[in-house]
Every structure is written in C-alpha cells, then in structure tokens.
C-alpha cells in the first residue's frame, strides 16, 4: 500500500473525524458524570458548566448505600443473564434446525421469527401481564427473563440460522461417517466454531434486556425483581426530582457495561461477521 501524501492527508482527516465522533459519543456520558458530582444547587445554575464548583460524592454515597440501585443492579444482571442464556439455547437450536433440515414451513417460520422482532412492545404489555399473572410469574426475575425473550429470541434465531448456514455441512457429515452422535457433533465441532457468534448475539440479547423498560415496568412490583431502568425512577417523586442522585445512578449502571464491552469487543466483531452475511 503506497503511503503517499494523499494517503497521509486522508488519514489525518479520518483521525480528526473519528475523534470528533468519539467526543460526540462521550459528551452525554461526561455530562452525566459532571452532574452527578455537583451539589443540588449547582445543577440548574446558568450558565451551565462542565466542572463542578463544589464537587461532592454525596450523590454516589446516597445511591450506593441508601437506594434500591444495588439490588436492582443484581436483578438486572440475573434477568439479563437468564434471558441471554435462554435466547441462545432456544434460538440457537431453532436456528440450527432452520439451517440444516429441510422441512415444510421452514421458510415461513424463519420469516415469522424475523417479523416477531418487529412487534411494538407497548401493547404487548397487557397480554403479557395477563399471562404471567395467571402463571404467578409477576414480580419474579424468572418471569421477566421469560418476557424478555420476546425481544431477544427472534434476532438470535435469525442470526444463528445464518451462522449455521455458513458452516459447511461436510464437516458434520464426515464426523457422522466417523461414527459421532448428533450430540457429540454439536459439542465438539459446532460449538467451538461459533463461539464468537455466541458472543455477538449474546451481547445483543444482554444489552437489550438490560435496557428494557416497558415490560419490566409492568411485570415488576417490588425490589425482588425490579430492574435498573425502573429503579431509576426512585429518585423522582411527585414533588421533586433528585437529579444529582439520578445521574449518579445512571453513571453506576452504564459504566460497568461499557467496561465489559470494551473487554470483549474483538469477539463481538468477529462473531457478527460470521453470522449475518449468510442471510
């Protein structure tokens, strides 16, 4: 690749552009952190300013020790993990079936899966509530994880179908000729091949569940199952909104996911490339 002046100029422009984008991305996050470190009086001061005049950690202290956020954090994590696991297991195996076997309704059902991803959640709330109420699943983390499958499973199924189509049938067939059982094939051959893809769809499912609001609102009642987006409302009462604490809570719930993501982002990209291309 020739490194002439044209390339160098283009590179510099690119870096400037990328840096601008990163600044735009981080700006709200910085604003959140800035506000969370301000005492109540400073928050609405005009003109607005980035660096707090009298920085304080009282908001964080309040959120960590005296609010529901820590418990909600745990709930969100458990619900997300369970929803992700179920979506991967159920969606993944369904995707495998769609990719490998010829059967009537294959095309129809896989398209149906895709369409399910398009359902508006606001109206799903009521029938979902009725169902879970009858099954006594309201206000349980298991119930919420189950409900979250509505948003996680369809895409996971569709993407899995893509991944498996990308793995040549010959690999499995030669293993079968060698006498391996279906389960062995899956465990020893397929799973290792799709680990990056698991990472990719897994992250998508987890983040979707973590941020989900509408279903969590209706299906949780107490801190037993309340997740983080709902718990954020704790700081706004009829009379006033404690912005300092709300922002501190927001920082607390956002930063860990970002850290986790940065650690595994390489997997994520690798996984995405394997699965989506073979639509």
């Amino acid at each position, binding site marked *: 690749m020739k490194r002439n002046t044209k390339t160098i100029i283009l590179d510099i422009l690119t870096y400037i552009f990328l840096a601008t984008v990163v600044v735009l991305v981080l700006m709200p996050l910085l604003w959140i952190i800035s506000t969370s470190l301000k005492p109540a*009086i400073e928050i609405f001061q005009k003109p607005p300013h980035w660096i707090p005049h009298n920085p304080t950690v009282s908001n964080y202290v309040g959120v960590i020790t005296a609010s529901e956020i820590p418990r909600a954090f745990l709930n969100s994590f458990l619900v997300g*993990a369970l929803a992700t696991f179920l979506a991967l297991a159920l969606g993944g195996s369904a995707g495998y079936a769609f990719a490998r076997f010829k059967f009537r309704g294959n095309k129809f059902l896989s398209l149906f899966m895709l369409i399910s991803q398009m359902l508006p959640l606001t109206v799903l*709330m009521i029938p979902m509530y009725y169902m879970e109420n009858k099954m006594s699943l309201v206000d*349980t983390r298991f119930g919420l994880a189950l409900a979250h499958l509505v948003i996680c499973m369809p895409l996971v199924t569709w993407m899995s179908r893509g991944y498996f189509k990308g793995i040549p049938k010959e690999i499995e067939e030669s293993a079968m000729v060698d006498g391996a059982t279906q389960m062995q094939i899956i465990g020893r051959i397929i799973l290792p091949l799709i680990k990056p893809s698991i990472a990719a769809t897994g992250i998508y499912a987890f983040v979707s569940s973590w941020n989900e609001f509408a279903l969590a609102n209706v299906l949780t009642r107490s801190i037993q199952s309340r997740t983080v987006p*709902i718990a954020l409302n*704790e700081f706004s009462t009829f009379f*006033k909104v404690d912005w300092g604490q709300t922002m501190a809570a927001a920082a607390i719930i956002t930063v860990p996911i970002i850290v986790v993501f940065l650690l595994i982002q390489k*997997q994520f990209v690798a996984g995405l490339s394997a699965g989506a291309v073979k639509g």
Partner: protein
Amino acid sequence: MKYRSKLLSVVLASAMVMGLAACGSSSAGSSSGAADSAEAKTETAADEAKGGEVEWWTPNWDQEVSEQFKAEFEEANPDIKVNLVITDWDTYKSKITTAISTDGAPELVTILLTDVKPFAKKGLLDPMQERGKAAGIDFDDFIEAALDITSYDGEVYGLPFRYDGSGVYYNVDLLKEYGYDTFPETWEEMTAMCDKMLENGQTGFAWPLGNQTNAVTRLVQQIYTYGGQILNEDETEAMLNNDAAKKALTAIVSSVESGYASESSLEYDNNATREAFGAGEIAFNITGPFDSATLDEVYPDLNYATATIPGNGGMGVTTANGWCVSVPKNCPEENKEAAYKFAAFIAQPENQARITATFPASKTSIQDEKFATDILKPFADQLTNSKPEPAYERWAEIEPIIYQYIQSAVSGDMSVDEACEGMNKDVNTLLNS
C-alpha cells in the same frame, strides 16, 4: 484463554438458571427473601382464614407514613396482613391500569382524584358507600369538592385524603426592591409589577409549558379565571374558541412575548420553575403547597412568602386535585372487608392529616392548626375559589391536542385566534369520532 472464560461464564449462567428456576415459580421469587416469605406465608395461611390480606399500592413520597400506617393497623388488627407495593410518579398509572384490569388485583390503590372517573366508567372500581359506611367511614366529613371528583353516577369510587390547589410563591426581598410589600391582587396589578421588573432585566415568572400536564393545567386555570369551561355540560362540544378561552390563551402568550414570563417557559416543567424561583431567576412562581418543603431544603437562604393567585379583577381561580384510595373490583373477594377496614383507617381525620403533604380532604382535619401556618394559609384561602381539574371521559385524549396548540401559539407559529379555533375544531372532531 478468552474461550475458556467464555465457557466459564456459560457454566455460571447455567448454575444461575438452575437456582432461579427453582425459586422462580413461586410468587415470592427471590432467593434471599425466600426464608422471610416462607415464614410470612405460614403466618398468613393461618390468618387468611380469619381477616384477610390487603395489598396497598402507595407512592414513594408517601412511603414513610404508609409504613407507619401498616404497622399501626396490623397491631390493632392482628388477623389482617398489609403488604405495601411502592409506586412512582412516572409509572404508577400504567402499572395500576394493567394490574386492576384482571384477576388478582391489589386490594387498595392510591391514585389521583381525577384518575377515578375513567377507571370507574370502565367498571374497574368498587362502589364504596355501602361497605365504606359499614366499616365506619363518615362520608359527610369529606370536603364536598373533593368527593365530587371521585364520585360517578351517584356512587363514590375513591376516598380522598389529600386535596390541594395552586398558589403564589414570591421572593419577598425582590418585591420589596420594586416597592411591593405584598403580592398584587389582580392580574393587571401583577403585569404592572412585571413591567417595572422588566426594565431592570428581572423576569417576573415562568410558565411550565415543557410538560403536557403542567402546561394544560395552567391554561385551564386561566380559562376558569375568565369564567369559561373546556367542554359543555354533556361533554359533546368544545368551548375552546369562546371569549374566555381566547383571553386565557392570550394571557399566557402575551406574557411570554412581552417578557414577563421567562422565554424558557417552553422548556420548563414544575420542577424547573421551582429551581428558577429558588435561584432568583424569577420573582414569583405559581405552584402547589408542596414546593415549600423542597425550597426550604435546597434554598435555605431564600426569603419567600405565599399569596393567592391574582385574577381578572380579583382572586383568580385555581384547579384543585388530590389523592385518594380506591378498591379495585378485581381484587379477591375474601379480602374486600379487610380492604375497607384499612381504607377507613386511612380516611380518619387524624390519619389524613398525617399522610397528606399538603391539605387533608377532611373538613374536621383541615381546621387543625398545623394547616394554618403563614405559608399554608393563602393556599387554603385559594381553595375556596377553586374548581376541580377536568375529569371528562376523554380528557386524556383532549389534553395532548390542547398542549400542541398552546405550544404553537407561544412559539409564534400561529396566532391566539388560530390556535383557539384549531383546538376547538380538533377536539370536536375527536368527540364526534
């Protein structure tokens, strides 16, 4: 290496799945609470036969008092168990709507007075007079205006325990600077005062036009002040293009245009106007009595006082609303008696005084000294000239329409006349659809 940790997390996840699935199917659902709820379950299993279980959905700003009530009531009635579910302002309505529309609804819910009629019309609430009287509630003690709002078709569907309206908070020092010892009593006097302030660059006040409910409430207050109404008696036709409505909208639009009302009004909600008032950005603020607690806490140096709202040649009209407890129809029948008992407990004058953050809805209770402080007195006076917030059947659909036109008029996209005609036309279309 990375793959191994991925495998590890899958294993962990499976372990969690086992754990969760094990205790997930019971409605208790949490692993740490399993011990407690097991105990509670055996207790209530025995008690349920006798008294009943009451689940009360109460908002987070009432949480402390609600817990006191629960403790006291359970002590006095050992055969009844009370469970609290805490709601919050943003989500209480959608959660309650969903929960009371099917079996297994909570026994008692705290809702706004104006929430009652729509629920009652859909048959979701219990009529309360008969069982309420049997439980010892004195319906004559409730403030009539409040009880009116929670009644429908001759029956009472909600027991009010809090009833309040708006009033004026003003910055004593600022007003003194411009030669005012007390707050102006008519709208004209008030605009004259704003004029003076404007010469020095001081903004008079701000409208909370950034929030749909806050904004429309202010317009409604103005319409009432000019003697108008939103809809006609039968709720079949809108009256938004008559004189009163036009004057009302003009009051809002012209105050922003001339600068008396902050140009940030379009973005402010009630919280923001309070902050602006506390910071001295505006000289006075029209809002409810609950603001005083927050002002004291966040702006302790602010020297403020309260007054009634100036109106058209005299005291203005405020909208009034409040909170009440209702019994959903779909709650388990065997718990209803206990529910009414607890409701009666809450409705007692002394208890109303404890749980309200503003005024109780009880005639005897509101006479209490604690509601006659300097700060609170103007609000009580203002309540004598109040009208309930609209509780029309289709109000929730009408509100967004009105809001859009208020915004257009204030941002100058259309004239007041155009906005009122437009509002009127759209609401009529809605009512006839």
